[in-house]
């Protein structure tokens, strides 16, 4: 197939050359083959405001004003802006737009485009994929290269949210009748790869143009995206060295991928906490009695052999998490070590300790079935759920069920379809579920999505669905970004973790790792453990990928 593909490429080249009657042989362009997502078929949609767009639209076509480098504590790397300044009261922020940036049709990129884009989101809230309307009340042009954003509330994190909005050219989009149905097939952008050179349902190629403002730092001519429908097809191509840059799941990566070719390399970067979530509103009286008992949750946690789970279910790709607050070693800088150490013993594998704690709390085997019953004498079997097909999660749950049996807690594994899993969590009809959480540059995203009770409704994702409510945690989370003072934020973080840890709300197991696979055969300059410049994932939503592509150089 590979040989066949080469042939067709040569044919295409010959055709192209004869069509333009160019006598010289075209200089081969350097193309990076990437896998930013799996698609059943490629649909030519470069509208940056639609969730269904192609994943090379943001960053690569519409360059952000700045990239906040999460791995470096969210320090901004300025791109289409040269800086920003927050007002003292944190109620507004002013961005300085870089002069000399051009759209790919040659027009100047100015404050007007920025203001136009934010107004567009106000008039068409359906386009507001990043939630900017909740942060910004209005964008105002100060001069050609200065924009002032007024904010809905004091928010030191606002610049981070503002640069997530893709800025589109006013001179094009103001003529678009229905932006929410606009496919933007021939995009005019500011990013490094704005020319769509090839587009078929199975492959497309995006190349750089002379208008790109930072051309001298860019050594890649094109990015190339083959259509890949699922992980199996991806694996076949990755093993075959057909992919340069990917961040998909490869089981047992050393054996399956790295050993197949000396150019196959990978680097794992910290991802979010993963934990067992228990339901505090269980309709079953016996289960409710057990799960709302803090000593039971601690015994549950002590029964879990975290390292074994990481080694078996995740092929070693993970870091144990023994923080009752869920923080994990990736956020050690935010940890109050007194709190961490105080509850560490409850989150460390200890069969005897778990048994002793259960006995102390009154969980005894009343009916001689070999498993403990609640203090009021009711027997129960916990069902632990993970979504069908998420094989690492399914294995984790299976191991946990066996480990819980060791300490006398009866449990069984369930693997419902994701929709059923999710609904059971929203409706509080499940017992225990295994889930992952978002990561971020500070623990706010994790705690807010995972513990803020405002997210315990049917419109929200699964993360806060333990249905445990604590007003103090809610208000502390609300005040986190009301200050720009790191010491103040640290104080808030300490209070939050003390409350969560004391209650052992969830049972943290590990901090996951994101996969990143790169091929040194065609390009060098990849970020890795020796050169940890940032998160290198190729997914949309990881703007650092723009910085990574600027660091690439064709291999000699």
């Amino acid at each position, binding site marked *: 197939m590979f040989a066949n593909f080469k042939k067709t490429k040569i044919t295409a080249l010959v055709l192209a050359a004869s069509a333009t009657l160019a006598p010289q042989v075209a200089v081969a362009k350097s193309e990076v083959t990437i896998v930013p997502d799996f698609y059943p078929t490629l649909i030519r949609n470069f509208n940056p405001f639609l969730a269904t767009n192609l994943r090379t639209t943001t960053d690569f076509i519409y360059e952000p004003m700045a990239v906040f480098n999460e791995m470096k504590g969210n320090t901004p790397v300025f791109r289409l802006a040269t800086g920003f300044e927050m007002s003292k009261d944190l109620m507004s922020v002013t961005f300085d737009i870089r002069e000399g940036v051009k759209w790919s049709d040659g027009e100047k990129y100015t404050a007007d485009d920025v203001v136009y884009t934010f107004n567009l989101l106000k008039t068409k809230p359906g*386009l*507001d994929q990043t939630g900017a309307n909740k942060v910004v009340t209005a964008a105002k042009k100060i001069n050609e290269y200065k924009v002032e954003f007024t904010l809905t509330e004091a928010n030191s994190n606002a610049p981070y949210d503002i640069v997530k909005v893709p800025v589109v050219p006013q001179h094009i989009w103001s003529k678009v009748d229905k932006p929410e149905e606009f496919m933007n097939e021939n995009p005019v952008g500011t990013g490094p790869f704005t020319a769509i050179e090839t587009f078929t349902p199975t492959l497309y190629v995006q190349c750089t143009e002379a208008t790109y403002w930072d051309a001298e730092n860019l050594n890649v001519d094109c990015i190339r995206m083959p259509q890949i429908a699922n992980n199996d097809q991806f694996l076949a191509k990755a093993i075959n060295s057909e992919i340069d840059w990917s961040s998909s799941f490869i089981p047992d990566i050393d054996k399956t991928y790295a050993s197949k070719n000396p150019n196959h390399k990978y680097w794992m970067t910290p991802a979010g906490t993963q934990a067992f979530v228990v339901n505090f509103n269980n309709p079953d009286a016996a289960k409710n009695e057990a799960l709302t008992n803090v000593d039971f949750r601690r015994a549950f946690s002590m029964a879990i052999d975290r390292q074994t789970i990481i080694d078996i279910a995740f092929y070693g790709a993970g870091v144990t998490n023994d923080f009752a607050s869920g923080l994990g070693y990736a956020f050690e800088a935010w940890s109050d070590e007194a709190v961490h150490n105080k509850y560490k013993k409850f989150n460390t594998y200890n069969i005897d300790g778990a048994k002793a704690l259960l006995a102390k709390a009154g969980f005894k085997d009343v009916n001689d079935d070999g498993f403990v019953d609640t203090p009021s004498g009711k027997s129960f079997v916990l069902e632990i759920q993970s979504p069908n097909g998420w094989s690492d999660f399914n294995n984790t749950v299976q191991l946990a069920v066996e480990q819980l049996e060791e300490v006398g807690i009866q449990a069984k594994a369930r693997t419902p379809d994701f929709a059923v899993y999710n609904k059971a969590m929203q409706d509080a009809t499940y017992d225990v579920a295994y889930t992952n959480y978002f990561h971020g540059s500070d623990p706010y995203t994790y705690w807010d999505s995972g513990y803020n009770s405002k997210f315990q409704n049917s419109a929200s994702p699964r993360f806060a669905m333990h249905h445990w409510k604590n007003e103090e945690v809610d208000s502390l989370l609300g005040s986190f970004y009301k200050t720009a003072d790191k010491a103040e934020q640290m104080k808030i973080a300490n209070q939050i973790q003390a409350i969560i840890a004391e209650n052992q709300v969830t049972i943290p197991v590990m901090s996951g790792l994101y996969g990143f696979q790169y091929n040194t055969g065609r390009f060098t300059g990849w970020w890795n453990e020796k050169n940890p410049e940032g998160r290198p994932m190729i997914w949309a939503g990881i703007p650092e990928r723009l910085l990574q592509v600027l660091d690439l150089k064709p291999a000699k």
Partner: protein
Amino acid sequence: MGFFLRRLSFYFIALLFAATLNFIIPRAMPGDPVTMMFANATVQVTPERIAAMKELLGFVDGPLIVQFGMYIKSVLTWDLGVSVQFYPLSVNTVLGNAVGWSLFLAGSAVLLSFTLGSVLGIFAAWTRGSKFDAIISPGMLVFQAVPQVVTAMLLMFVFAVGLQWFPTGYAYSPGLTPDWTSWEFLKNVAYHAVLPLIGASIVQIGGFLIAMRNNMINLLGEDYITMAKGKGLSENRVVFNYAARNAMLPSVTALSMSLGMAIGGQMIIEIIFNYPGLGTVLLNAINARDYQVLQGQLLVMTLFMLFFNLLADMLYVLLDPRLRKGA
């Protein structure tokens, strides 16, 4: 004429019934399109983002009765709505992109297996008990009994992954621009279709073969065959003009049913060989809870099924004079 009208009204009621089911079944599944879109999200999905998406799609959360009204209207006006998964593409476009590939793959598979199966069946019946019959008839039934996923995977691993004679996927080489006037492109399409076509045909041959063989055997005992033989007609004439022609009748129904099914695509084959047909579209629509695409595609499948059934009814009347009188 009365027969025709009665059949037609029956099909109309069947259509209404099927259309209602098409609406209910996708919605009886847990989950909704927006939740599924962000199920496996690797970056943060804020409630605002979900709200924005729902606002954009509008129709998803409306009360069921309103959704049903819109659905019936869309059925009657043949405007099947907008896909969620491929927003803002219309369902018509999504299905239109895939229908050609499906008709090509499933249609040629049905025709191929019908022709092969019928011819083999005729000979198997004529030479009943011979070595040919003893091998080919049970042999084809074995292929039919083995799940399609097994034969398709075997084909793929032996001829595509192992021997590398054929590609592992796609309808044509990635990066090639479809050009239906170019001989090179057509060759490329044919080359990519070989394995899927074999995989889709081989499991269907047995059914046609056995049906044909059994009918033939029944007919061969009839007096008029003995009479034909007695008249001294050639073997070919007896087999094809006297026996096969009549034995064909039940197979016509089977054929039109298969053609009706063909529009649903060869789901398993398409998924294994990453073939861009309707089967792949259907599976993706189910996974994404893309109601509009699902109900649109189910409706098209229903219409095709009913159309080919009707066609079979009509053909029967043409082929079998007894029915004309009976009506």
